[in-house]
């Protein structure tokens, strides 16, 4: 029974950039400024985390009415381009919010379609799959850290740090930092950071104490389950765990046939196309979960239950 099996199907993702975005103190969370891709942003280039007097017009940090400065105003919010358009603008001001939270300072990772050099600014046309937008990079904001020449060559992905602006009804980004991507996994890191941050601001911290159960949609359950407990396992494992969570069983657990049917029903694409691939991916995922201690067999090898 214990012969080594050749692993087919979804390999375990390499955990190259797991950092603790969800610290223990929500008030001190600083999305977008931790992690291995941000080390270059704090050198030179205007010290954006502290700087209030950048000529690129970061916007006044003093809130009108002299209220206390909210912690989130100095934090970078990772966003995708669709969200830049979805953000709501408080009438007349340059404060933007999304899901009720400020998105004044943002970071975006997108592909450069086009660069137009003007006297006062470079204008980048950006596309990240969710939409297209222009980013204006003012001449004064440029520093030796920016490598515009390199960007021109590759027309690949760049990381932008800046703020949302609306001019003559058209929304664009005022970029203080434009940096070409060197690690091609960085866009995927960013997309995941966008999703995680969005969920955090919608629903509160993961494993959230005190969040009413009704706030979660059925679709979130598997996302949360994977994110909080077995974030280094694949989507098939997540779907299997979601099946157990949504279908509580007695002490005998579930028959593998029902588990697989449940997974195919809720996540039809997750096991791939043909019958053989489906069985292999499912079997591998079940193996992974058993080895990780998430599931254990009960009556026989066809029945599994969730370890609580």
């Amino acid at each position, binding site marked *: 029974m214990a012969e080594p099996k050749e692993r087919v*199907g*979804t*390999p*375990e*993702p*390499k955990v*190259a950039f797991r950092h603790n975005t969800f610290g223990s103190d929500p008030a001190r969370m600083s999305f977008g400024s931790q992690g291995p891709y941000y080390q270059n942003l704090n050198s030179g280039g205007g010290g954006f985390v502290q700087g209030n007097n950048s000529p690129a017009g970061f916007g006044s940090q003093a809130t009108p009415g002299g209220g206390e400065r909210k912690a989130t105003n100095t934090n970078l919010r990772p966003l*995708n381009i*669709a*969200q830049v*358009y*979805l953000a709501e603008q408080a009438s007349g001001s340059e404060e933007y919010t999304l899901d009720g939270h400020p998105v004044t300072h943002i970071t975006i990772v997108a*592909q450069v379609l086009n660069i137009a050099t003007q006297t006062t600014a470079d204008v980048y046309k950006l*596309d990240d*799959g*969710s*939409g*297209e*937008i222009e980013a204006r990079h003012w001449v004064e904001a440029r520093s030796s850290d920016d490598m515009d020449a390199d960007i021109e060559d590759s*027309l*690949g*992905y760049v990381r932008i740090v800046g703020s949302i602006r609306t001019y003559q009804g058209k929304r664009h980004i005022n970029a203080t930092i434009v940096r070409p991507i060197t*690690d*091609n*996994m960085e866009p*995927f890191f960013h*997309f*995941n950071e*966008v*999703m995680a941050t*969005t*969920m955090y601001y*919608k629903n509160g911290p993961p494993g959230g104490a005190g969040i009413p159960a009704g706030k979660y*949609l059925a*679709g*979130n359950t*598997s*996302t949360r389950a994977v994110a909080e407990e077995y974030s280094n396992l*694949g*989507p098939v494992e997540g779907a299997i765990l979601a099946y157990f969570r949504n279908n509580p069983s007695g002490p005998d657990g579930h028959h593998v046939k029902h588990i697989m049917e449940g997974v195919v029903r809720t*996540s*039809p*694409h*997750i096991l*791939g*196309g043909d019958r053989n*691939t489906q069985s292999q991916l499912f079997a591998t995922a079940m193996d992974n979960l058993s080895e990780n201690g998430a599931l254990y067999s009960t009556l026989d090898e066809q029945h599994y239950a969730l370890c609580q």
Partner: protein
Amino acid sequence: MDMKTPRINAGRMSRYIGERVRVVAKIVKVNAPTAMVELSDGGQIEVKLSSDSHMGGPYVEIIGQVENEKSLKMFKAINLGDNIDMAVVNHTIELMHTPVMSQYWSTKP
């Protein structure tokens, strides 16, 4: 603002027939004017290459139009080099297709 190119994998091609999408692909074989590539969920599709078929690789991001569930007509490709973890890519794509995320990524769950 108009052109949205959601990221998909092989299993989801049939939902986007006639539409422009992005895929992360590993080049398996090039037989100009087509190529066989493997997408992030392990499924293989055929790509009709555009005239600038200097794709690089072995990993590329291809933007193209879905012709049928096994075939994509390429518009352009971005070289992604050799350091791509397809499991993470696929997981990201699946997360983008969850109902709560689909509004932000223009995906079809």
